[in-house]
């Protein structure tokens, strides 16, 4: 590297630098033209730590709550992207104030609500969770009786794959859920093998490809879920759920119970009297509401904030009852 060359480079850079400096004088200055970050004066709301669990339905709930908390209550909302387990731990460490869509999790409830007493329930979200076995719409159309579990064995050969050892394949799981599927297969004497897909993405891709390529797939799925608005999966009816039929996990031979999804908050947050707590407690909406916001996010590719703002603008009446009476 010759001195002259590096010198030249330096000179060029310097000249351009000064040039930029001179031309820049007309530009807007940082902090002058722009407003300081949103939020402004917290009306004694303060900071609201909201866990974001990794699925779109949850994000829809959280986005709307966060939007209302920021815009109507003036809270400073800190969103934390966390898996459920970690989010619950956050109650213990004081870093999470609220989880706004909880699917059962009885073990965590026992640990953090009953044993450690760091969390409390904040009521239902109004969303109904359904878990079950689903097939793609084309299959339901082509084999109408497939939606009855009694006929599943008849169709088992259709579902054979390289993974299922000659039996039909029942595609299981998102690892976040405890499933009874292995017990169900056994107890209903189905000629199927449970294969672990391992993630929601894997399940959805499998159903997508099933529909596109007319490839038979039977799999575990749940509602509400944004994907259902893309592809209306059809649920297979297992023997109907009755109270207590799933008491012994090993002997289960009935469908999953309907879930009433609920909200959990930290004890500290509940006792703080924060308006955000009232908001979380009062928050309830329908599956359709959630699906709409989820669709904005997942399919229309809006950011969560945009989606929430749009929905809130369209549904002012639904927000009213959530707000604390004072404001």
């Amino acid at each position, binding site marked *: 590297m010759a001195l002259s060359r590096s010198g030249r480079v330096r000179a060029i850079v310097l000249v351009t630098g000064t040039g930029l400096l001179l031309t*820049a004088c007309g530009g807007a200055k940082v902090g002058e033209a722009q407003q300081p970050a949103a939020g402004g004066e917290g009306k004694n709301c303060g900071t609201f730590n909201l866990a974001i669990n990794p699925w779109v339905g949850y994000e829809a709930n959280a986005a709307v709550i966060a939007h209302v908390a920021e815009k109507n209550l003036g809270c400073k909302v800190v969103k934390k992207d966390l898996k459920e387990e970690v989010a619950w731990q956050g109650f213990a460490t004081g870093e999470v104030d609220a989880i706004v869509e909880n699917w059962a*999790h009885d073990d965590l409830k026992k640990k953090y609500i009953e044993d450690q007493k760091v969390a409390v329930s904040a009521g239902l979200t109004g969303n109904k969770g359904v878990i079950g076995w689903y097939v793609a719409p084309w299959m339901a159309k082509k084999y109408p009786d497939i939606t009855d579990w009694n006929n599943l064995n008849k169709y088992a050969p259709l579902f054979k794959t*390289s993974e299922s050892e000659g039996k039909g394949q029942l595609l299981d799981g998102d690892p976040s859920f405890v499933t009874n599927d292995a017990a169900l297969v056994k107890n209903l004497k189905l000629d199927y093998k449970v294969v672990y897909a391992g993630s929601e993405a894997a399940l959805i891709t499998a159903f997508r490809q099933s529909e596109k390529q007319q490839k038979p797939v039977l799999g575990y799925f749940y509602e509400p879920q944004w994907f259902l608005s893309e592809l209306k999966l059809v649920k297979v009816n297992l023997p109907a759920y009755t109270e207590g039929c799933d008491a012994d996990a090993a002997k289960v031979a009935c469908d999953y119970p309907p879930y009433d999804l609920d909200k959990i908050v930290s004890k500290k947050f509940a006792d703080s009297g924060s308006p955000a707590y009232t908001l979380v407690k009062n928050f309830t909406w329908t599956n359709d509401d959630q699906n709409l916001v989820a669709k904005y996010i997942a399919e229309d590719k809006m950011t969560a904030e945009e989606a929430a703002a749009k929905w809130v603008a369209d549904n002012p009446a639904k927000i009213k009852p959530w707000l604390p009476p004072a404001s």
Partner: protein
Amino acid sequence: MTTVAVVAARLPARRYLLLAVLALWVLGWAVFEGRDTLGLGGAELTPLHTSLNEGMDAIDDSRNSNPFFLYFINYVRLFLDEAVTFVQALISQPSFGRPLPVLGWLGVVALATAIAWLWGNGKVALLTAAGLISFGVLGLWQESMDTLALTLTAVVLSLAVGIPLGVWAGLNDRFNRLVTPVLDFMQTMPTFVYLAPLTLFFLIGPASATVATMIYAIPPAIRITSHGIRQVSHDTLEAGASLGATGVQSLRHVRLPMAKQTIIVGVNQTIMAALSMATIAALIDAPGLGKTVLKALQTLDVGTAFNAGLAIVIMAVVLDRVTSAASRRVEADRRAGRLRGTRRRRLELAGAFGVVAVLGYLSYTYVWAADFPIQANLGSYVRQAADAGSLWVQDNLAAYTDALKNVLTNTLLNPFEKLLTASPWWLVLAVAVAVALLVGSVRAALVTAAGLLVLVLLGLWQDSMVTLASTLVATILVMVLGVVLGVWMGRSDRVDTVLRPVLDAGQTMPAFVYLVPILGLFGPTRFTAIIAAVVFAAPIAIKLVAEGIRRVSPTTVEAAISAGTGTWQLISKVQLPMARSGVTLAASQGLIYVLSMVVVGGLVGAGALGYDVVAGFSQHQLRGKGLAAGLAIVVLGIVLDRVMRAATQRADVAAHGGVTHK
């Protein structure tokens, strides 16, 4: 032991013995099929898993009373949080009451380019500028800066811890022996296992993310530093000692300067490791590109994930090229005797930092230089293109890939897995020990026996066997690719130029980005997991083989050619055998990389240990089982590694009939 090995290596009957063992295995399998296979259902737990769970709970609960956590951990956490937050305040997050970070994009670009120019060269400086600007162009400026902040902080701290420990390990054999298995453990224990517990101690946020990253990034720093310190020429050290240098003096004046170049390679590897953790750390709210990728995965948004993945790849390539250039520069400067030209150097430094100061000030003051102009955002095109590409691939290739998957699964994977999982565990154990003894050493056989017994104790025998089958198949594929492409790349510079960026991308592109397309192609199957592992592990194997081929002395090649050797003979008789150490290294690194993808495999249908770990991360009552599965992966890694090492050592003995290195 060595004499046994020498004798055994020369035993002509060894190959037949091996065949006999395999034949006996098949026979035993036919007789005992399905007995004592120690299967365990997905949600079933053994007492050990329950007590592991309880143990972890107990640790959780002591968190607020145990002084170790109360004082030590808390202060570490505070320090880490402050450190990351400070760097974020400088380059990525609104800070000091301003709506924007202290340095805007122009300032960061200028600073990074100046650093690349001053310590690297003009070419990498250009690359740096282009790379950084591309973050803005992809519409991911802030996310990229968050990732950079986290990575740099973790790297600096990893080096601050790793280099001194590496020096110590280089100087002290006992410490080296002690630390090596710990490093193995840190590198093979799946992150998912310790991610959740970490947040209990270091809380959610930058501190936990930094610690998780450091756990993964410190091992290469220690290993490579120690290697560098060790390889300093004995002659020079002796010369120092003969002049009466003290231990400290010889470290400072002889070892460290002479190991400098190797240590920079360690820095490079540390950076790569840290960056590859960036996505996973996003699971515990680590800021940055990883979050974007994971968010996109929720909606199977391949385009967005790819866009962010691309930014990670670019960042990796820039950091890699700059550190490599810096290490080469150290060497070149010395040769040119340029280290002494301090006056010119000072001028250069002053000039460059002068420019940086000017641009930095602009980016501090003016919005156009602080906030990356939105008009330049081309991310949406990249997203659309990636989406279209992924869709096209899934729609048009799925039929073929499905067939490929079925053939390979049915002919290779299934029979092998059947043999492993349907044989009684004691039969598999006996066979494994016999094989380790035949291809390796007595010691390897002992390790194998102990390791497999641990798997039985962990209650995850069958899952381990399923994972073992996939791991071996993946490693074989990796080595096939490694040798074929590695030889090609090692023999041709043109191929090297074309292939290298692709390999870099394969190595640094977060697996979450390509999960969806490969799921589309192969469905949620073990084969998909194998493919993901191959995508990740093949690049390193290819690079190492190529490196080995290139190291073969040109004189030998010339001699062979002048003796009339054909191309194929040249490769098979000269270049590959002479590159054997490179190939061996490729196999062992390939294996480690494959194992590190076991968990990702669990996300795409591999089931077994990978799924156990993932489920343990997601479900409270499966935590203990997840931990056990993590341990099982570590055990598999150790056993395979030791057997492989013993086998190569034996091959060396057989080839040279005597002394081996180490």
